């Protein structure tokens, strides 16, 4: 281990809103990426700058499509995005891929390895791939996702692909960010398909059974049959009939068909005015969801509550008080604060 004797500490971020806005609008990759860092930052001081940045950007004109891709680990999401992205780029689109990896709740760190699986796409000039750790947030998808989408759209990316790992309830949250939600499944009957929770099936716009290749072709057919059986029970309120198809991302089979379906779904919604309506509805949900986590974040960064939280936790671990009692104390303290006249 040898350290450079002349090494300097990391410079502090020193970008002003004006140059960020200009950089994003001329499509400067490095500016976009630093703007994303800013809106993702958990520092309260950064929040204000981030908000100013977002407000300084022109309003989105709904000319982009936002596509969500979800499925269990190992279902082949990244391989599919690699293929989809390359087709999009060939037809002249600019792609932003936002990949959300689960972070380990204990260490807070995570491996963000998506580019190892999107090798070709990651080299493309018209592709911007940004994996983020979801930093332990419920929903498997960051609070700042909406703002990041906005930044990417402002930088001229017109197809935004959002990849999330489907674990437990998280898949549904993606529905709050995208125009079209593709749920991926693996070949197989019964258990594996039924392992996908009903609520998720209901909110999907397209179902894709991946890995329909080699020895698995017959299993894929079974899965497809099963999904089609379940699907006729669902219909979306905008009249979109949910299709189920089988694909092989690895062998690049059926991917162009899937892409057509995605485009068809988005266009169907755009023409019916539903795309715009849906995005506004999503904004409402975003506010409702975000104020809770933001208030909690704000509170815990305040010295008094930070210490109270810490001492309560210590007492719980020692066995001095029950978690319920600790919660009572914490809430009581909070009530005192909000009752104080300003």
């Amino acid at each position, binding site marked *: 281990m040898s350290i450079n004797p002349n*090494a300097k500490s990391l410079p502090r971020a020193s970008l002003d809103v004006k140059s960020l806005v200009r950089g994003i609008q001329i499509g400067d990759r490095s500016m976009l990426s630093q703007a994303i860092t800013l809106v993702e930052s958990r520092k309260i001081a950064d929040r204000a700058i981030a908000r100013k940045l977002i407000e300084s950007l022109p309003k989105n004109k709904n000319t982009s499509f936002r596509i969500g891709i979800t499925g269990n680990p190992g279902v082949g999401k990244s391989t599919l995005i690699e293929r989809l992205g390359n087709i999009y780029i060939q037809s002249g689109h600019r792609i932003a891929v936002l990949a959300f990896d689960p972070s380990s709740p204990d260490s807070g*760190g995570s491996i*963000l390895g998506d580019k190892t699986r999107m*090798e070709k796409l*990651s080299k493309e000039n018209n592709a911007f791939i940004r994996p983020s750790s979801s930093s332990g947030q419920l929903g498997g998808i960051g609070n700042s996702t909406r703002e990041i989408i906005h930044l990417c759209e402002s930088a001229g990316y017109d197809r935004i692909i959002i990849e999330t790992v489907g674990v437990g309830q998280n898949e549904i949250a993606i529905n709050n960010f995208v125009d079209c939600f593709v749920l991926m499944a693996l070949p197989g009957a019964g258990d594996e398909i039924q392992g996908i929770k009903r609520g998720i099936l209901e909110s999907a716009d397209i179902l894709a059974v991946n890995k329909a290749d080699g020895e698995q072709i017959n299993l894929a057919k079974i899965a497809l049959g099963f999904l089609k059986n379940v699907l006729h029970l669902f219909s979306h309120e905008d009249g979109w009939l949910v299709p189920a198809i089988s694909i092989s991302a*690895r062998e690049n089979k059926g991917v162009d068909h899937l892409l057509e379906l995605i485009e068809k779904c988005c266009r169907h919604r755009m023409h019916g005015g539903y795309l715009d309506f849906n995005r506004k509805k999503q904004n409402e949900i975003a506010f409702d969801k975000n104020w809770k986590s933001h208030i909690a974040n704000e509170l815990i960064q305040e010295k008094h509550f930070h210490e109270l939280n810490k001492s309560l936790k210590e007492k719980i671990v020692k066995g001095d008080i029950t978690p319920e009692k600790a919660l009572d104390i914490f809430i009581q303290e909070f009530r005192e604060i909000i009752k104080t006249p300003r």
Partner: protein
Amino acid sequence: MDPFGGSIVIEKRTSQLLSDAGKLIKEIENAGGMTKAIELGIPKIRIEESAAIKQARLDSGREILVGVNAFQRKEAETLEVRQVDNSKVRKSQLKQIILLKKSRDNTKVSIALEDLRICAQSKEGNILEKAIIAAELRATLGEISNTLESVFGRYEANNSVISGVYKKENAEDPAFIKAKHMTSLFLQTEGRAPRILIAKMGQDGHDRGAKVVASSFADIGFDVDLGPLFQTPEETAKQAIENDVHWIGVSSLAAGHKTLVPELLKSLKNSNRSDIQIIVGGVVPKADYDFLFSLGVVAVFGPGSPISESASKILDLALNDRF
């Protein structure tokens, strides 16, 4: 004669070895044989897992390896290393290929390659035989493999990374606890977790070490981006910039550092991101350290560098003036 015959210790070890090996063989058989297992990435992940465990044990001193974590050399080793100018070699190789393509019978080469393609596609005939015919006509290895790729596609390695191994092995190690504390400190001051891209650039396929480091850094609390194999410096820079990392950890085991690191720095500079710091790990001759430092490389971690300590060191350096 078997002097250890009947020894309880040896008998126990051999029977342990037998049953552990049996487990691995069973895992492979359950996957449907070795070919399937390789496709699923099973052997690779097992190797990486055991490498991470070994690393963790060496770092915490629970396992002793003389020369690595005990009785290290006091005086710096000064090995004379032959210096190869990679870019010069590359240029002369390219020149040779051009010369070769000029001197051979290109019509015959195209016919031979087309024969090879048809053979691969129809699955009739012997691919190796056709490849040898093409090679004898001076078709390049690249041309031959590209022809086969056009039919079969390219093998894409299943690139999963283990997690939690380093943490599990090292949970009680003071150096690990300190490094973890530093990452949370970093998160508090900077508003996000420390983020590092572990990159493999150039013709260097040795990624086991890179993966052990990636996995361990994630356990310590870093957000770790892992680049694909064989990246060009420009591609590494693009990835680092898009992900807005604090550091790029360049893993170099094939002596490419003297060309690849300067190119990487240039690419970063072209995008105004010279603030992204570079760390080099792997096999780098001591004599090259000063050269790398003069370019602005922050640290060089050679073989035997304990991971937790290395992480603490760069975090410490990064936050130097923050407290």
